[in-house]
């Protein structure tokens, strides 16, 4: 039996600002994880990753990150992604300041 596929989002850093961004269903880049497209099929995820990786004029370092789907949108599955989503813990200098 194949291993169960962990849902994923396509994520990267914006070329100009370096901000963490996520790929949406509409093929735009969002700063908010909740707006990311959740990929539940491995083949789909690979194709979305390949397509997103070709957008080198917009983003850097594209990869698939594990998420846990939730009624309010995807949640990070790993603490590294949680920090990328919210910003550093020592100052409100990252995304957490934008949420204020």
């Amino acid at each position, binding site marked *: 039996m194949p291993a169960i596929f962990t849902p994923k989002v396509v994520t990267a*850093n914006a*070329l*100009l*600002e*370096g*901000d*963490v961004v996520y790929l949406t269903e509409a093929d735009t880049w969002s700063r908010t994880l909740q707006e990311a497209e959740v990929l539940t099929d491995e083949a789909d995820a690979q194709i979305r990753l390949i397509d997103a990786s070709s957008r*080198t*004029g917009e983003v*850097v*370092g594209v990869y698939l990150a594990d998420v846990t789907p939730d009624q309010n949108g995807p949640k990070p*599955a*790993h*603490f*590294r992604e949680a*920090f*990328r989503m919210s*910003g*550093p*813990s*020592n*100052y409100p*200098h*990252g*995304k957490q300041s934008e949420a204020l």
Partner: protein
Amino acid sequence: MYRYTDFDAAFVAERNAQFRAQVERRIDGSLTEDEFKPLRLMNGLYLQLHAYMLRVAVPYGTLSSAQMRQLAYIAERWDKGYGHFTTRQNIQFNWPTLRDVPDMLDALAEVQMHAIQTSGNTIRNVTADHFAGAAADEIADPRPVAELIRQWSTDHPEFQFLPRKFKIAVTGSPNDRAVTKAHDIGLRMVRNEVGEPGFEVIVGGGLGRTPMIGKVVRDFLPEADLLPYLEAVVSVWNLLGRRDNKYKSRIKITVHEHGIDDIRARVEERFALLRPAFTGVDQQLYAQIKSDFEAPAFADRDTAPFDQAYANDPVFRSWADTNLSAHRAPGHAIAQISLKAHGATPGDATADQMRVMADLAEWFGHDELRVSHEQNIVLPHVHKADLPAVHAALKDAGLATANIGRISDIIACPGMDYCALATARSIPIAQEIATRFDQLKLENEVGDLKIKISGCINACGHHHVGHIGILGLDRAGVENYQITLGGDHTETAAIGQRTGPGFSADEIVPAIERIVDTYLSERDSADEAFIDTFARVGMTPFKTALYGESERKQKAA
């Protein structure tokens, strides 16, 4: 201090213009990221977790007040109002945007600074004793040597594509404050039996995944042979170094695999070939550089204001006891400014704080500042009479924390709060430990104790050589912290020993507290420092305190 020659200024300006054009070509799509990345790294620009990061070289940790003020300006103009001083005596800006970086580099060039070779597989910024030129125990000022090496290594055509990065540290004092034994090359300035100046050359030290204490490859190298000898070492490694495996590519592995005797023989052979090519121009240059580092004229003044403040002001006294070190000139002191206020981020300074430190250096410190690898700032030359005024100004700026060398004077790498390589956070752990021991009011009782924290195995936080080292790892998706004890960063360098299984983020501060409690109950007197108690009693009581008697016995069985 060294001043750029016309050649230096033109070189930096040209590099900056090139990088500006490279950034434009990346933005307009003519360069791919794969093409651009090595170019940006050559100019100190990383992409971290949340943003770009610009690492600016502070050569051998020395800054003038004008340079420090410019760093403050850059922090305010293009960053978020602060900078992070690193364990390699550099400063990092955590939030630049790609478009702004060329302007930041131009602003740095205005004060003779740059970010060249602060990244990539090159010879990195040369570090030196942060008390250079000031320490009472110094044989000679290591900074002219470091500057000579910088000029030789900058854009050295043979050494732009090394197997891996290469770090050199220099000390001019028998008490090693530059961690020379944990560098690819460590240089100790010594004199031979007839009193001629030279170097003990240590090679193959390093921390990271495979920590190694450096080995002596030449016990006395005459001063004039320095550059050809360094060139021989680096070129031997450049050929032998493991380009096939990033984890085995540093010279420490090359030395380990081939043995120091084999490396020494190869280096000597290569040196014999290279030596004649150095016709003495380097020594003329060295003589010129040395004159740039002439000691300032130290005034002979009454130290009464210091004595008075010391006698009457307990806050000043406590600061003086921890943050001052012996200066070579009578009536003077080396004053360390702690960037480790309890609960603050180790190594961070705001733009306002940078300006205060710059002012103090200008008014009271012969215009000099140093960045220490312990992530503090040093005023190397202050007359004792001026120290009460210095202390008062520092207090107003939140910079008068009296904790140098204490348990809260923690080295911490940026960890997963910023770094893309990190496996766990380090800053919050440092903040919590410092806050906890401040609450307990135990710092002075505990005395000299170095905690060093890294957020991944690469060991930027020097955890292997901390008296207590903490290494943050990812264990099955949870932050986990391993502890090592007995590390030593000085001339008696040693790698700490692991205590056993790691601790969760919630458990690590109580675990450190148990270690400190054990030390306090085991030490033979208040004069026995943590590291000495550990050497005497060994790991056992600390293991018992951390894991309990039964677990220890089970493991032993």
